[in-house]
């Protein structure tokens, strides 16, 4: 390890001078340049930190928005005929517009609009990115949750209501917990997409993993190692995520045991 900087400098000079080097020597130089020189690994590490923070914030926001929108839209649809609440109707309309607009426009365009139009004067690119991702994710999560709520046997809600529980208690204790179990695979999918979509916030200057890689190869003019490097990091993050999801699903299946 100690002689790596020495070897790096030596072999780098060989390459610059056009002398013959073995492929291993060449790849070592590229690797060292991409990750070790000037402690560049710290930049990746910071990038991972930002990526995870942004994912967590967007996730929390997406799930919150998703649950609220899904519950509003489902409760609007489930109102007794002739007793529709006009206020709920209006909120429902707002929710529908939100879902349509967000699902109907590209993530990248939404990010650019948020970063360069709505929050033009903000310098906190990472937070703007997290906000955009959360708003985007909320639309998809709401549709996933709505599907879960609708797929549940109506008898479950009827049993809750017949016991005298009000609509929101029935949703909170009976319908939503069961729906969440049913939609966990789809939700996991959405979370993975979200984690990888954090790379898009680079376009508005969010300093996450891809931003770090771009910063490095714009200095070294060598793209292969930084890009492969972050690809592997994303892959590992997603694999950890899937593993955690598996654990959660097994825990929620507890009530299925016989």
């Amino acid at each position, binding site marked *: 390890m100690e002689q790596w900087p020495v070897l790096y400098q030596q072999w780098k000079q060989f390459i610059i001078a056009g002398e013959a080097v073995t492929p291993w020597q060449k790849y070592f130089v590229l690797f060292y340049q991409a990750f070790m020189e000037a402690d560049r690994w710290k930049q990746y590490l910071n990038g991972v930190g930002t990526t995870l923070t942004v994912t967590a914030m967007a996730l929390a926001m997406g799930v919150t928005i998703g649950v609220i929108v899904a519950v509003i839209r489902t409760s609007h649809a489930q109102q007794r005929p002739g007793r529709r609440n006009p206020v709920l109707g209006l909120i429902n309309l707002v929710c529908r517009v939100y879902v349509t607009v967000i699902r109907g426009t590209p993530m990248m365009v939404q990010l650019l609009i948020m970063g360069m139009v709505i929050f033009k004067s903000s310098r906190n690119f990472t937070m703007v990115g997290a906000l955009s991702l959360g708003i985007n994710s909320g639309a998809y999560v709401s549709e996933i949750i709505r599907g879960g709520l609708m797929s549940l046997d109506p*008898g479950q809600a009827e*049993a809750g*209501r*017949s*016991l*005298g*529980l009000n609509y929101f208690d029935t949703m909170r204790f*009976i319908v939503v*917990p069961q729906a969440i179990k049913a939609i966990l695979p789809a939700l996991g999918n959405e979370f993975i997409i979200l984690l990888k979509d954090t790379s898009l916030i680079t376009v508005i200057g969010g300093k996450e993993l891809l931003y770090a890689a771009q910063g490095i190869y714009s200095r070294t003019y060598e793209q292969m190692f930084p890009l492969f490097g972050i690809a592997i990091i994303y892959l590992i993050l997603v694999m950890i995520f899937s593993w955690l999801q598996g654990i959660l699903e097994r825990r929620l299946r507890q*009530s299925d045991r016989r």
Partner: protein
Amino acid sequence: MIDVKNLSKSFGHHLVLDDISQHIYPGEKVVIIGPSGSGKSTFLRCLNLLEEPTKGVITFDGTVITDPKAKIDLIRRQMGMVFQHFNLFPNMTIRKNITLAPVRTGLMKQSEADADAETLLERVGLRDRVDAYPAQLSGGQKQRVAIVRALAMRPKVMLFDEPTSALDPEMVGEVLEVMKQLADEGMTMVVVTHEMGFAREVGSRILFMADGKVLEEAPPAQLFGSPTHPRLKDFLSKVL
């Protein structure tokens, strides 16, 4: 106790209940029989407004429950309902299934509700399954728990919607036994069922429904002994 006046219900253009008027007295055990599609279940579900009547007035203990301003949650607390498919909450233990409603509605504290659940379970012979999940129980056990869950709200009347129709034959007996016990204790009951033996033994009045109408009503001995309506004769010849 429950008064039904000119109740009609249609789904789209299909008329399921056709101008039914009935009165259910305290302590009565009304058993509703009839061919499938006759509107028995819909009638029962209208009583606690799981189905919204198209026309008519239903009064429970002096409260007009079909009034749009009626506090339906408060009324439903006094009407227990048992479903054909049990509808236990699969994500909760038996204890939680039973105690959720009494605790959430402020009827009891969790500790009281727990003790109460165990007492009630003891009566149906399921005291030892209090921490099990519904998936771990047999059909008959699930239905007994469902009855306990409804009873935990201390209802004034119990509605049974074909409580034994989804059960294996050998499990029907244990559920009917619990229902008989309940009847003997003086509970007001409205039961939709295909169990003619139960109807005859427990019912204080039998309603025969077909095509959305109550075609004949009488105490069991009379209704089964000397049916008058041809539809009822035809029905009884098929099921007895």
